[in-house]
Every structure is written in structure tokens, then in C-alpha cells.
């Protein structure tokens, strides 16, 4: 028998048909952009694109873990706004203090969600909706509804501007480490496998003696932590804590996860495809900006949203109608 562990493209496609659409769409958009716009492939566009989208990637991969358990986290946008304020307040103490504490405050919200869901038996939708409202109010209270400027004298602002080895901005390095780390956790550790098993069948997982509660708590805490990191990126990128930001981010994150082919019911999905989903959504904006720059036609920000929605719809339609057939998985009744 052949080595079954070697990467086999045909096998990947047959096992993950729902993830294929996002890669094709991403590829098509990139080729389109490269052919049509001169500066699309410039180092400047690539780094600023990734720099800006790092926060969306961070909350999307966190969201992916939650959705894989069969849950949902609506609080990520508000939590990111909250932690951006926390990070801005703490910025005088330097990045090494501000970043961990801001992330930790995000983890705190995530743990609160987890406790409500796992021990309080509150449906994830409701529990995280409540946290969303609470975090929103909290960030307005601690900031007095004002943007909080970061301390320009500290090294906090270096995060978004200075580059590791003079090439890649630190934001991108951090989000890259996050992606690879979570990819390994999901694919290679028992914790990750337990998360997939819980989403694929919670009762079955209990019967198999898996640590179901621990897996769920981890997923929500992780999602909160990722939102915390997104808040840090937000504060460093804009030079201020933004209590009013984050509206609708949870929906973008859910869209990235779903476009990436992760089942909303959990149990099946992937981190790289989620990242591809987040990049795809960002790329639609990027391309529309280039198109506006050409001066032929001009799309207002509102029309950009409409176009992004339509594009998303088309990819999902393609995914479900064309690529996504799953007759080979029959469920034992």
C-alpha cells in the first residue's frame, strides 16, 4: 500500500470539496488584480493589505475554532473594540505590557462566554450576544466614548510600522505565527481533534470519554484572545483605542469561516481555508479601491459593501451547488 500520509491533491479535494471554492476564487481574484492593475503586486500594496487585514484574520481563525465546536461567538467585534481601548491606555508601559494584558482581557471575555455556555447551559448565540452588548458598553464606559490616543513615545506604535528584519511588518509576523500555531493545534493535537469531534457529535464525544467541556472552554477563550489581539492591531494601526469600532466584525468573521468551507454546524473545517476566506473578503475591497483609482467608474463605500455581499453570495452558491457534494458520507441512523 502507498504511503497514505503523503499529501495527495486528489484526496484533499475529495475530502474537502467545500474548501476548494475559496482557493479558486482567491486565485482568480489575484490573477485578475495582477493583470489589471500595475501596482497590485507591489510590495507596498501587499504589506499594507496584509497589515490592515491582520485583525480580521485573527478574529476569523478564532471564530473558526468556535464554529468547529458547533458554537458561535458574536462578541468578537465588541471585544476587539474594548481591548483596543485597554491597549491604548496601557501603551505608555510599552508593547510588552500592553499587548499581553489586552489579549488577556479578551481571553477574559472568552472565558466568561465559555462559563455561560458550558456550565450555565446558555445557547452560544444568546450568551455571546449578551457579551457583545456588555463589551460594547464597557468600552464606551472606560473610554468615555472617546478615541483614546496611544502614547507615541512608547514602542507600542512600532508594532504596525516597524518590520522584522526590515522586510515584514510585525503585525504580519504575529498573525502568521498565530495561523501556523492554530493550524498545528487543530490538525496535530488531541485538543484540536477533540474540538472537531465535539462539533461532529457532542453526545458521541461524551460517550467516547473525551474532555468536551475543556475543548469548548478553550475554543471560546481562544476566540476572545484572538479578538484581543485584533484590538491590539486596531490600536496600533490607527494610533488610538477605538471604542466605536468593531461593529459587524463578527459577521465578517463568520463569513470568512463559512466561505472557507467550514460547516456552520461544526466538525469539519480548516484554518488555512478560513484565512483564505478572510483574505478573499479583504481582497474584494482592495480590488474595488484599485478600480476606483483607475477613474473609470467610482464605487462609494456603500456600493462596495453591496458588491462584497454579492460576491460572497456567488462563492457560497458555487461552493454548495457545484463543489460541495457529500454523498459519500452517509450517517448511520
Amino acid at each position, binding site marked *: 500500500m502507498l504511503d497514505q500520509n503523503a499529501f495527495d491533491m486528489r484526496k484533499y479535494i475529495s475530502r474537502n470539496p467545500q474548501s476548494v471554492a475559496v482557493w479558486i476564487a482567491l486565485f482568480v481574484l489575484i490573477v485578475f488584480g495582477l493583470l489589471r492593475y500595475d501596482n497590485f503586486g507591489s510590495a507596498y500594496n501587499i504589506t499594507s493589505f496584509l497589515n490592515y487585514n491582520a485583525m480580521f484574520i485573527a478574529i476569523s481563525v478564532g471564530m473558526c475554532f468556535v464554529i468547529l465546536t458547533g458554537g458561535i461567538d458574536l462578541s468578537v467585534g465588541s471585544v476587539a473594540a474594548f481591548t483596543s481601548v485597554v491597549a491604548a491606555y496601557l501603551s505608555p508601559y510599552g508593547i510588552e505590557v500592553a499587548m499581553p494584558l489586552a489579549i488577556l482581557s479578551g481571553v477574559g471575555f472568552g472565558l466568561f462566554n465559555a462559563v455561560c455556555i458550558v456550565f450555565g447551559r446558555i445557547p452560544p448565540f444568546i450568551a455571546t450576544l449578551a457579551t457583545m452588548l456588555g463589551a460594547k458598553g464597557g468600552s464606551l464606559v472606560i473610554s468615555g466614548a472617546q478615541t483614546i490616543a496611544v502614547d507615541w513615545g512608547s514602542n507600542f506604535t512600532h508594532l504596525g510600522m516597524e518590520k522584522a528584519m526590515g522586510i515584514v511588518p510585525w503585525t504580519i509576523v504575529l498573525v502568521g505565527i498565530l495561523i501556523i500555531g492554530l493550524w498545528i493545534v487543530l490538525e496535530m493535537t488531541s485538543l484540536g*481533534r477533540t474540538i472537531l469531534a465535539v462539533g461532529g457529535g457532542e453526545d458521541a464525544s461524551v460517550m467516547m470519554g473525551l474532555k468536551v467541556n475543556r475543548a469548548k472552554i478553550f475554543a471560546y477563550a481562544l476566540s476572545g484572545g484572538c479578538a484581543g489581539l485584533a484590538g491590539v492591531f486596531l490600536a496600533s494601526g490607527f494610533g488610538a483605542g477605538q471604542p466605536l469600532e468593531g461593529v459587524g466584525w463578527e459577521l465578517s468573521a463568520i463569513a470568512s469561516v463559512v466561505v472557507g468551507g467550514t460547516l456552520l454546524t461544526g466538525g469539519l473545517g480548516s484554518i488555512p481555508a478560513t484565512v483564505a476566506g478572510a483574505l478573499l473578503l479583504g481582497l474584494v475591497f482592495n480590488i474595488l479601491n484599485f478600480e476606483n483609482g483607475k477613474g473609470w467608474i467610482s464605487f462609494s463605500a456603500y456600493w462596495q459593501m453591496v458588491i462584497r455581499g454579492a460576491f460572497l453570495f456567488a462563492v457560497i452558491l458555487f461552493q454548495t451547488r457545484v463543489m460541495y457534494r457529500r454523498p459519500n458520507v452517509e450517517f448511520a441512523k
Partner: protein
Amino acid sequence: MAPLLTMTGIKKHFGGVPALRDASLEIEPGEVHALIGQNGAGKSTLIKILTGLYRRDEGEVEFAGAPSHLSSPRGAQSAGIATIYQELNLVPLRSVSENVVMGQEPKSFGFMINWPEAHRRTREILSRFGIEIDVTAPLGSYSTAIQQLVAIARAVSMDAKLVIMDEPTSSLDSSEVEILFGVVRELKSSGVSVLYVSHFLDELFQICDRVTIMRDGKTVGCREIADTTKLDLIAAMLGRNADEIEAEGLTELAGGSAAFDEVVLDVDHVATGPRLSEFSMSLHRGEIVGLGGLLGSGRTEAARSIFGLDPLTSGTLRLNGREFKPAEPSEAIRARIAFLTEDRKAEGIVPDMSVRENLTLALLPSLRRNGQIDREREKELVSEFIRKLGIKTSHMDQPIRELSGGNQQKVLLARWLATKPDILILDEPTRGVDVGAKREIQAIIRTFVDEGHAVILISSEFEELVEGANRIVVMHEGKSVSELTNPGITENALVRALAHHEDATP
């Protein structure tokens, strides 16, 4: 040798209702031990206590020579007790290997799952069972039989000392059953004990060493398989005396249905799949025909075939002399057939709706006038049924969940009667209903047939069948095998008919 497992004096209550009164079980190392009993005898409760899903109220459990608490599935599993459930408790979306090693994955560097090793280990165990499959494919892409064997492979990989199999063959065909039996023998020869729960008595004689019989939450006997007979086991399960049944002898089961001459429904060699392979019966106007048989004999499937729930693969149904092929329940309902299902909670009542709304759910189209529900007529109809059936409700707008089980059942019965059916199929109509309401429901059914309609009655309670039915069609392994007619309908005759057919199959 000391027994592997000893359970004694196990008691368990659910909200004051006893599920186990005094259960005991003893299993030797390397033994295949059968556990049998009627529905509700307490088998599943006992198993769930053994697997740590429920906690016992009282009683002692000793496993592998030490007292055992069994407080969680995880604890039971690490103690060496693995369970293969009827509804498979694996994750179909995930790979075969994952389902086998989850919880005890081989690791490298202490945290990374060593997938090549996991796949190798899974392949090795499955090949011991004679199965060569791609272990990286999703479990759900394989047949139920393979999935079941994967579940057993999981138990083996966890070093289980005791494997509990709950109705393992109920969804397997005969060649798959042979493979399963091979695996059971393989487990036995490697010193693993198996607790085998099945209502197919023939199987027990093929692979089990001993059998424990439960009835009404109590253990009523434990025998060597070699020293027992099927009649003996059935009698013990039903709480009857085997000698008495034998002694009564073979009163001729002849008779006739002379009183009923107009055939409304004629079922001719109908099959819908492995669980209903040959079903024939006729139903006359004014008659109640009972379907008798043990669990899994195909009684419910027989009813489903008539109601258009399972498409016929062969055979014919004739309704009032004309061929009848219901593709879905709505066609059966239009042909004036009604089916009161066994599962009142899942398929019957809408708990938060009122008595009135529940009663008229199936009637809404006929109550419509000018696009609105005719409230006056609805109220009239509902109060008529509440009166006629003696439904005890404070008001017709009381939520149905506040009613007793018996009164809920009457509402469901009224819902179907209101559609003016000609044929009423009742699956366990009085299960979970108190004695008073039971009598009333039986009286309603009798009135219904006396008005010139017909009823097919399915019941696990022999008493109900014998008292209520004009005729009893006996089912066995998906086939209608014999018929009891008056005056030959007695409980003992029914037990004998079942035992006879249990014996008749090799």
C-alpha cells in the same frame, strides 16, 4: 476464577419512578454474556449505570476485583469498560483512525499526534477482524456494519476488559452478522468479556455462554445457554411459567372471521426492506386485528408500509378492492387511513400548543373559510371530542403538556378521529398511560370499530392484544408467520406462537 464484574442489588429511580428495583449481573473473564428482557425491563438503565452515564441509587459494583464507582463515561472507559451503542456513538465526519484513537492518541514530542502511528495501529486492529479499509477516509463513508466494527476496534485499542454491545445486529444483514460474530469470538479468545444485549434470541444460542434475564427492573434469572430453550427464555422474560404453556398443549388455532365479511384492506406479501420482508394480512370492517411479536419483529415497519412512510419494494396493498400505493402519508390520510405513532413526544404532540390547537392540527385545511380558520366550528368540534372521549382538561386552551399522559394520548386519538378515518393504525396506544385511561382508550377504539371502521393494533402487552383483538397476526423477523383467531386467542397461545417461530428458525 473470580468474576470480572459483579453487580448486586442495583436500584435506580427517576423522579420517584423505579427503573431498577433489584438488578444484578455477573460476568466471568472471557465470557460472552447475554442480557435480555422486554422493553422497559431495565436493560438500558443497567448498561448506562455500568458505563457511568447514570449513577446508581443503591447497590454494589465490583469490577476487576475492586469496588467501582463508575461516575463518568470517561472513568468507565479508563477502567476498561467500552460500549458499542445501538445508535453509534462515533463521529461520522471524522476519519476512521480518529474515531479509533481519540482520547488515547499516540504522540510524538509529547503533544503532536503521531498520525502514521495512529493509522498503523488502527489498520492493525481492523485487520485482526479481517477488514482492510482506508482508515483516513471519513467514518461516515462506510456502511453501518463497518462503523460498528470500528467502534469495536476502538474498544480494543482502549484495552477494554469488557465490551458492551447494545443490539449490535439490529441494522446488519446476515453476512455482516457473521463477520460480527467472528469479531466477538476473536475478543473472547483474547480474554475480553462481552456483554451482549439483543432481542434476537437465535443469536444468543450461537455465541453466548450465559444469559441474564430482566423483567420489571429486576434480574429474574441467569442461565447457562446450553441448559435453556427459547420457550424458557421467552416465558422468563414475560413472567410466565414455561411448563404451564407447554402443558396447555396445542389447542387448535383454527376458527374463522365469519362475522366480518367486507375486506377493507388486503396486504399481500409486502416488503419494504430488511426489517419487513414478507407481510400479509387482511382487515375487515368492524374488526380489530392485532400485530403480535417481540421487539424488532417488524410490527412498526408493517404499519409504516401501510401508511406510506416506507415505499414498498415488493408486494401489493389493496384498499376496498383497489390497488393502493401510498407514496407518502398524505396519500394514506386522503384514503382515510390514520396512524397513531408509538412515539407520542417526538411525533405526536406539540407540547406548548393548547389542547384545541393540538386537536385540530390535522384538520386545519377543512376548517378554513375565506382564508381564515372558522373559530366557531373549531370550538364546537373540540368540545365535542373533549366530551365524547372524556378528555380531562381544565379548558380547551390549556397547554397540552400540562395534561397527563393518558389525556395527551386521547387528544392525539381525537386528532385522528376528527379526520374521519376508515382505518386506524395504533402503535402502542396505551404505553405510559395509567390503568383508568387505558380502559377508556380501549373503549374508544371499540366504539370506533363498532361504527363500521377497522383497526390495526400494535402492542407489546399481550394482555391488551388478547383482550382487544379479534384476530392476531404474529410477526417474526420481518415476516407475518401465523395467525391466531378466536376462540384460540389466549396469552399462552400467543407466547407459544412466538416461541414456536423462534424455534422454527435454525
